[in-house]
């Protein structure tokens, strides 16, 4: 059958066009239901793993899900026993560790040495420590301390300068810092895909969050008390916030900005107006997150309300990434279909879809059975799809 979108011939049994990914079964050729990165999910679905780890498939996503659940149980257990230094350190690095394993697992650093990717974590972490020391210790420490005293006196005693510094200025500065190393890495020719940009952005954002957490909670490591016996409910809410919400809000926001830097086609787009808009969106979401957390802290059950607010912000960021990737994958595929010649993003040999294991035709950008994008496959899978031998890329 002929695709109504790109006029490419597809097998009669095809549910999706193998070139542009358009649906061939519905009344409309547009795709609004099946997410091109993981077709078993909808685009507007709050699914964390497939969003921040787009190279995974259903099976491997489950591996990460279980690993994070087990780790979270350990962290919550440590908190319940009052081992706050243990819980803080583990919570800060849960997402970064999972992400490093993910990058190793999908062979993202195959074309670049591992030190490059690890360097992204280290450089971002070093910048995070520097910025955090400037804001929390060296320059604005008095303003931050005002939150402590005003927290018991009501929202009427909130320091507006402190609010502006820590809920507006700091998130914007942090977003710039998080973008720097990720953008440098996204300029490399082998990492010019939007999904690669997203990956480096998430990696940089989570690394920044982890090292910032170490700085702002350093007192728990130097207080001399390994075990805390009271206030554990507050600590539990704070640690869940650090473990999941803060890390992922930072990561997904930066992922959006750096993905926009990479652009949808081959080669990176750079500092275009598209990048500026998405950077502003990322910084704005960070500002919204911290303003909400700060103001909620003056309400009854303020820490828990702040945590809920963080999940709302995170949901918006996750949906934004999915809509962004969906549009980019489909638009780039249509552009490729309109061009003569091969795209490096399509299959060069018959192979299997990593998601549903049905056959991928030659010249495919999408699986005709499940509609999953070839570009969301792991790097070793893509290498396998685009090579005539085990050695080099086509």
């Amino acid at each position: 059958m002929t695709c109504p979108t790109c006029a490419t011939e597809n097998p009669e049994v095809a549910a999706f066009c193998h070139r542009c990914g358009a649906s061939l079964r519905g009344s409309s050729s547009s795709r609004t239901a099946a997410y091109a990165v993981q077709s078993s999910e909808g685009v507007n679905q709050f699914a964390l793993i497939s969003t921040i780890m787009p190279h995974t498939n259903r099976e491997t996503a489950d591996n990460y899900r279980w690993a994070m659940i087990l780790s979270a149980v350990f962290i919550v257990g440590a908190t319940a026993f009052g081992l706050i230094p243990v819980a803080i350190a583990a919570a800060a690095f849960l997402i970064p560790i999972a992400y490093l394993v993910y990058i190793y697992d999908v062979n993202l650093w195959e074309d670049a040495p591992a030190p490059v990717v690890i360097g992204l974590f280290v450089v971002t972490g070093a910048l995070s420590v520097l910025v955090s020391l400037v804001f929390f210790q060296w320059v604005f420490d008095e303003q931050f301390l005002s939150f402590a005293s005003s927290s018991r006196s009501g929202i009427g005693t909130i320091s507006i300068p402190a609010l502006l510094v820590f809920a507006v200025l700091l998130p914007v500065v942090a977003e710039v810092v998080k973008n720097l190393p990720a953008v440098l890495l996204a300029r490399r020719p082998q990492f010019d895909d939007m999904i690669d940009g997203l990956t480096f952005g998430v990696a940089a954002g989570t690394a920044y969050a982890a090292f910032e957490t170490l700085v702002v909670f350093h007192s728990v490591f130097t207080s001399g008390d390994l075990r805390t016996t009271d206030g554990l409910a507050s600590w539990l809410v704070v640690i869940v916030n650090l473990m999941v919400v803060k890390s992922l809000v930072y990561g997904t926001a930066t992922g959006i900005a750096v993905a926009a830097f990479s652009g949808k086609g081959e080669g990176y787009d750079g500092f275009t107006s598209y990048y500026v808009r998405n950077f502003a969106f990322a910084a704005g979401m960070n500002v919204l997150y911290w303003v909400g957390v700060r103001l909620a802290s003056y309400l009854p059950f303020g820490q828990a309300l702040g945590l809920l607010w963080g999940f709302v912000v995170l949901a918006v960021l996750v949906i934004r990434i999915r809509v962004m990737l969906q549009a980019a994958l489909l638009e780039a595929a249509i552009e490729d279909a309109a061009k003569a010649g091969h795209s490096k993003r399509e299959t060069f040999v018959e192979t299997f879809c990593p998601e549903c294991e049905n056959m991928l035709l030659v010249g495919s950008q999408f699986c005709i059975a499940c509609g999953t994008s070839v570009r969301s496959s792991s790097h070793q899978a893509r290498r396998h799809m685009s090579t005539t031998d085990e050695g080099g890329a086509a």
Partner: protein
Amino acid sequence: MSDQTPQQPPVPPNQQPPNQPVPQQPVPQQPVPQQPVPQQPPYPPQQPYPPQQPYPPQQGYPPQQGYPPQPGYAPQPGYPQPPYPRPAAPAGGLFKSGKQKTIALIAGGVVAVGLLGGLVAVVAGGDDGSSTPEVGTVNSGVLDPKPVGQVDGPPDPGTDPSASPTPTPAPSESPQPTPSPEPPPASGAVTVGSVDVMLSGDWALAGDPGSDSALFADGHGSYITVLTGVVDPTDDAGSLLANNVDFFVGGENYSDVSVDQVSPIDPFGSIVSGAVTNYTATWVDSQGSIPLQGAIWAAVRQDGTALLMSAEHGPAGQWEKSADSWGPVIDATFNQFGAS
């Protein structure tokens, strides 16, 4: 999957069934779409299509729902076919790690980092200058209110304090503020309830004061919180302080709260009962945590007016040093309170 015959879809009449070599002649009857031609990339020229081999059985995946079973596709006329034999899945799968390895790497890494954090806490705890000091001497020697007048004995026990406000006993002499050896530069007084808080130096009101409470800051990490009210003049200031500790160090943001035993302060002036205690705590928030140290004073005047003040400084390691800032305010305010 293609070796499962029942799953094969009906074969169009003008196509060869799967698993059969495709003859090159005659030319397939299905019309080849001519437009739009440019969309098709220049694939390698047509080669005899290799016989379809049964696909290897699927491993590890549940049956796919919602999609039609995909057998080997029949060669589409006009559709480019690869010159290569269909490759097998790469050795080791499409990911470097298996389920157990992935879970072990992540969970093991998280546990290792957590234990490292605990080790750092054990080794570095107490060696840092910002570590929380022990709650020490009551009053810290800072609050040293001077009697500002002589009260003629305790309130008359025969008077029912709840019946009507007890008139303030006339002092034997007009209260005269005792001049301090080094009076702090007064920067004004702020009335909280019916009590004047005597500010000096860089101290200023922080935010909007309540009807009976207010927060003051010096801009150098010290904060004074004031709470006023009216109680029974016979109430003990120590009990009053103990009942109001949560106002100063309570709430969900305070953790590791350690409050020293409440100690009495000798009454002076119109103050009939006084008490003080020290505390340490950790302020916890999603954006950070700060070790704090502070002290709370309470005094009850003979007219039933109660004044509670706390001075707090963060980080806790600089508490003693910060006394130069908050000490004069506490002294001046209680002196004024006792003189009224």
